[in-house]
């Protein structure tokens, strides 16, 4: 019998019908059963909830860690490539973020209060910086610009500055602030790429692509200023035989020597390009016809002299055609074509000489 029921009967001394007693006892047991099941199920449910809680907490922690890692990676990137700056109307730095140290090697304490131009190099790109800074103080917007400064260790840095004006309550511009980005690596890579696409790898002088670009500019300038210039189309005589006899390597060295000899005869600023195997172009500006003939003659004489390449003694010469703007052509193609034709008249009439287009084609 159910313990509680037994006690109750004992206490009251009641004499109860057996069927009735059986029903009451069943009800007592049912109630116990219900309570036990409820307690058990709540315990199981509570354990499951705890497990779920731990699982979710772990997931949340993992996710937090992941986003922290991403954040750290991002701030690392920012700290090593960006810093913030402000300077006042006297161009004195008033603020720098801590990351300036990571990039320039100078702490912000070393730099704040000094002119922002202090560590600029003499690179031409820095030339107009003061002018531009002044422009900002007049309220004008300027595009991001690149400056060349020296790292504390003496190495070159290229920094891109994106500046904006900072105004006081009266809307007066008081400071210039901005974000500085270290672009040294990409700048150097860009310069290398630029060199590769504009200069002849063997001789280091301009290539065909660069020649065309520069000639365009010279033509525009000459047209505007009503000036003449002359284009010398130089083709070496006997170069193929050198290659065949002594090998391509010797041929390449010869081309480098030829380049040096021609360079000696012209000015530093004269356009000088190699446009094919043994074809060179020289563009001479601001020189009259007579003097051009003189320089050309000197080039020929220099090239005639013996070359000592490795153990070989080599003799070559050159054929040169000269086209003069604008009478021999008003654009690059026409000038090159006509100089080429003039050069071929020399090739066909004994080589080692030069001629002006006007001489070969008087019309």
């Amino acid at each position, binding site marked *: 019998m159910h313990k509680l029921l037994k006690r109750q009967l004992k206490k009251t001394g009641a004499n109860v019908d057996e069927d009735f007693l059986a*029903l009451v006892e*069943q*009800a007592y047991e*049912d109630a116990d059963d*219900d309570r*036990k*099941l*409820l307690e*058990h*199920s*709540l315990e*199981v*449910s509570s354990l*499951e*909830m705890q497990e*779920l809680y731990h699982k979710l907490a772990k997931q949340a922690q993992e996710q937090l860690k992941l986003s922290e890692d991403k954040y750290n990676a991002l701030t690392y990137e920012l700290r090593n490539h960006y810093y913030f700056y402000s300077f006042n109307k006297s161009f004195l730095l008033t603020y720098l973020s801590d990351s300036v140290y990571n990039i320039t090697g100078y702490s912000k304490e070393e730099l704040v209060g000094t002119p922002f131009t202090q560590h600029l190099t003499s690179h031409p790109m820095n030339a107009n910086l003061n002018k531009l800074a002044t422009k900002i103080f007049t309220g004008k917007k300027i595009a991001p610009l690149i400056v060349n400064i020296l790292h504390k260790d003496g190495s070159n840095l290229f920094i891109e500055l994106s500046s904006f004006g900072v105004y006081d309550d009266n809307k007066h511009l008081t400071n210039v602030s901005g974000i500085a980005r270290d672009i040294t690596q990409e700048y150097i890579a860009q310069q290398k790429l630029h060199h590769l696409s504009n200069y002849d790898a063997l001789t280091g002088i301009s290539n065909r692509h660069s020649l065309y670009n520069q000639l365009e500019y010279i033509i525009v300038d000459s047209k505007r200023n009503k000036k003449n210039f002359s284009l010398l189309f130089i083709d070496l005589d006997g170069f193929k035989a050198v290659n065949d006899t002594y090998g391509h390597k010797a041929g390449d060295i010869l081309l480098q020597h030829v380049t040096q000899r021609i360079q000696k005869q012209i000015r530093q600023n004269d356009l000088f390009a190699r446009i094919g195997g043994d074809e060179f172009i020289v563009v001479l500006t601001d020189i009259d016809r007579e003097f051009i003939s003189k320089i050309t003659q000197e080039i020929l004489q220099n090239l005639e002299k013996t070359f000592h390449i490795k153990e070989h003694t080599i003799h070559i010469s050159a054929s040169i055609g000269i086209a003069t703007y604008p009478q021999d052509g008003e654009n690059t193609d026409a000038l090159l074509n006509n100089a080429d034709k003039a050069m071929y008249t020399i090739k066909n009439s004994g080589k080692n000489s030069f001629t002006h287009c006007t001489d070969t084609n008087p019309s």
Partner: protein
Amino acid sequence: MQLHHYSFQESWNKDFDTSLDSSQTLVIVFGSSDVRKITQALQDVTRAFSHSIIIGASTSGEILMDTLQEESLVVAVVKFQTTQIRLATEKLHNPEDSFEIGEKLANKLQEKSLKSVFVLSDGLNVNGSDLTHGLNAGIHSDVIVSGGLAGDGATFSQTWVLVDGKTSSHYVTAVGLYGENIHVGYGSEGGWDIFGIQRVVTKSSHNVVYELDGQPVLDIYKKYLGEKAKDLPASGLLFPLGVYDAKEEGKIVVRTILAIDEDEKSITFAGNIPMQSKVCLMKSNNDRLIDAAQNSSNALDLQNYTDEPLLNIAISCIGRKLVLKQRAEEELEATLENLPKNSTQIGFYSYGEISPTGLIGCELHNQTMTLTTLWESDA
């Protein structure tokens, strides 16, 4: 409408009034799943009401007025004045045919003057959800469809419905009520609350569930039932599965256990539970269940009712009886208290209840008290 009720427990409580026997008489019987106990009584009924339409089903407990009976037969005899009635029966070869059978029954009964359909189905060899969907497909949405799935105590072994006066498994019977004067009301309430963590059905097929959150569903039930796990599947009724409605936020359909498979660690539920459904275990207590039963009768529409005889068919789930135990009759008292004085309550504890949802025809319910009231106004 004339209405008498009878009860057989080893003997009849009173003599039949055979004057009610007619082609417009509906005899409803609910009896023990142990056929031996009621074979003679059933023969008495079929003999006495040979012109009437007789429908019936086995139970997990018979309901008469506010009493719960076991191993008995309860009978309601309703002679309609003007209401026409028609019976339709279909054999259910396997549960996969449930939709088709529902549709066939509907097509047999559907006509313009159809007011209501009362369905009794085999309780084990059927997919109750599909059956109701089949009925909805063929019956006009204005028609009230209600009924239940036959029970078999708490043993889940074999159920029957009456076909030509004989107890038969694998059948679904339905009776249609036609005419303007029949008034049919309905109400259905559960009283179960979700508890514990929400889970996702990760493996299921129709009404068989294999895994929740990647764990075998049977293991989860055993863990929760503790000592009572040995009484599965019956003890599983203490924790029905609440299935969140994917379309209607906050709506939960209660699904009850019909069978378990120890090898596959699966549980067969009374209705379909699609993959990826969100589910939760449910529990209840005596007070919640009795309150819900009362609410089911509060929901009955008795507008225009005056003092005519009224039949209330109460179909309650076996799961409720297992929780309420000796207090099961309190839910019968609760429903009867709310009904007019001239009411007769007959019914049974079932393996599933069918009742309108108010929106899309009828639906299978589990673990509810479901009421269907019938009364007829004068011509």
